């Protein structure tokens, strides 16, 4: 059963000194983020890799403390590194299997699913962003997408709830659900537009 804990933020200066106790604290603090991202990308196709990718993410973070201004930024960076590592694993895995003729292609899988809105795990527009750029996008969205909007957008796109179900769940008028969704997507568009690579991916998608 998952354990929820409240913990103090690790001391960035101590992390930069290589202090073991500070790093122990940081690993505990960052683990849920790294693991959650790895699981969301790999659970379906490569479940045995989830834990390993989360650990590799934390290993990679050890070298990144010099590049952050505040310790909180390590969370976005952890999410970003875990995402990119997971996508690499998926690409390597399926490239290898395609090469060996062992399994269906990614494209075939997409056809079977038949869902335009659900990209194959490795084919994500975010994959074009570097670690730092994706972390920056996440930080911007955390500031620009208030929690109530984020909850509505997540319920609609991730949980598959209908307007009616979302209205009931959040105590909103049904007409407000669409307004929340619209503002949420506007925030994503606004922040996404600041990242040329992501914009380019989206434009390619429109063609």
């Amino acid at each position: 059963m998952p354990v929820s804990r409240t913990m103090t933020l690790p001391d960035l200066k101590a992390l930069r000194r290589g202090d073991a106790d500070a790093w122990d604290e940081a690993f505990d603090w960052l683990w849920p983020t790294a693991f959650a991202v790895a699981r969301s990308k790999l659970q379906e196709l490569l479940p045995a890799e989830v834990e390993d990718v989360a650990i590799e993410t934390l290993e990679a973070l050890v070298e990144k403390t010099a590049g952050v201004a505040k310790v909180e930024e390590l969370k976005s960076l952890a999410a970003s590194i875990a995402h990119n590592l997971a996508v690499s694993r998926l690409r390597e895995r399926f490239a290898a299997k395609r090469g060996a003729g062992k399994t269906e292609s990614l494209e075939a899988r997409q056809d079977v699913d038949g869902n335009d809105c659900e990209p194959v795990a490795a084919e994500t527009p975010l994959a074009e962003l570097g670690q730092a750029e994706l972390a920056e996008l996440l930080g911007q969205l955390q500031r620009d997408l208030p929690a109530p909007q984020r909850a509505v957008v997540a319920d609609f796109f991730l949980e598959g709830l209908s307007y009616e179900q979302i209205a009931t769940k959040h105590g909103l008028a049904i007409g407000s659900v669409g307004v929340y969704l619209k503002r949420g997507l506007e925030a994503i568009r606004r922040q996404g537009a600041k990242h040329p690579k992501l914009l380019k991916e989206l434009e390619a998608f429109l063609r």
Partner: protein
Amino acid sequence: MNSMNDQRFFDLAMKVIVRQSSDAERRELDALLAGHPELKTKFEQLRGEARVAKEVLPLLAATESSAGELPPYARERLQTKVRQTFGRPVESRRPVLWGWRWAVAFASASAVIVLVWVGVFRQSQPVIQIAMLDLAGPTRGGGAAEEEALRNTWKAATVESFSKASEVEAWEQTWPAEAARPQVKIIYDRTAGELRVVGRVKGRTVQRTILVENDLARALRVADDFVREQTKR
């Protein structure tokens, strides 16, 4: 379009994009797109944004997650990385009481401790057996190097090679009689590209499968970490 129609178009587009629309709503959207061709671009833009939303929202949620705990076996590996990165030993967590008085005391006690430790250490060491399964048989290249990598990882272990899955299955069912020590079987399936660890530790069964993915050294490290964690006292 006025703002009311604009919101209606958005709602219809959203429902169609996530496949929640009724037939009537789908027809209404089609009619809107036919009457306002400029909305087609807008619709595709919304579809692209929905795609980004589906990708980015789990990452945002993950940055707020506090559920789950770092596996104990990973902590040592991560602290090693800290030591390698910062180029000096990790600071001790407990004050070390070195001095000549302690040295004398230590010297007289150490011989006894070492003798006791050797006995306990042996009892706690796991019995490790390794099997390599290669359905293509021993003629395929790379097998010797991989076997050596397995031997180097678990130096005290025995390594056996098989070319039939049924033989490995039989081998896997046969456990050493020495039940007092943890027992671990490691099966490297070259054809499937996976390393499987199965163990019996203090009456419970543990297991983990690691994908090799052209990096046997990494998979062996992961497996070794897992074995150490599961069999430590």
